[in-house]
């Protein structure tokens, strides 16, 4: 599962005070604990339950996910640019497994 590579789209060149849109997508089955497999056995719950975005080390956005979120969670949010820096995105699943990705952003 650790081979999962999240995808994030952050504009590379931005200007100050611009509100940018950040799109994130991660491949994850998000088993809600209600689906059954081909043999009629319930697939145990296995979801990503938390997502957070940090900018230069400070948390700017956090989201708690529940089983009602679709497979391959797709999250979009906005951010107001103040300075150049790095975004750190983190997803945590029920097993405590963490998925990371970082993105650079430069103010032009």
């Amino acid at each position, binding site marked *: 599962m650790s081979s999962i590579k999240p995808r994030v789209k952050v504009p590379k060149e931005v200007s100050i005070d611009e*509100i940018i849109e950040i799109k994130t997508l991660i491949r994850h089955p998000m088993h*809600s604990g*209600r*689906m*059954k497999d081909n043999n009629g056995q319930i697939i145990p719950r296995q979801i990503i339950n938390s997502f957070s975005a940090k*900018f230069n080390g*400070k*948390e*700017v*956005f*956090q*989201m*708690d*996910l*529940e*089983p*009602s*979120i*679709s*497979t391959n*969670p*797709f*999250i*979009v*949010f*906005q*951010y*107001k640019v*103040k300075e150049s820096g790095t975004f750190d995105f983190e997803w945590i699943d029920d097993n405590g497994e963490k998925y990371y990705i970082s993105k650079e952003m430069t103010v032009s």
Partner: protein
Amino acid sequence: MKLKKLRKISRRNALLLIAGFTGTAIFPSISFAQSSQAFDRINEITKGLGATESDIYFDLPEIAENGNQVKVTFEIESPMTETDHIKTVYILADGNPSPNVAKFSFTPEMGSCSAATRMRLSKTQNVYLLAENNNGQFLMTNAKVKVTIGGCGG
């Protein structure tokens, strides 16, 4: 004898009726008249304070063909400053096995209170958005979605 029996029943009924009337007359003002899992959850989050219906951009498809992937977008008008910003946004579904869908925590750094995600809907139902600002006030809105194929399995 027969008359006495009748009166006994009617008195009990009258008591029940009074109890019922006072109940319905008092409760709508402090909590919600409808009883559903989403409203129960709203009452739990707001600690019985309730939320004011407000004009929030809350976009969901009117008819969702596939309940597995329903895009939900919202935008709440807020200056997003340190002293006046939306802190948390909850999305609650009335007809899903559990009312909780997602909880978003916003910070003033974001500049706007807007986000989008994709959710599952098991059947045709109302979806609620509940937002809390930094002063502890609650706003809410709802949207009805018709679901053709449910998306919660089982």
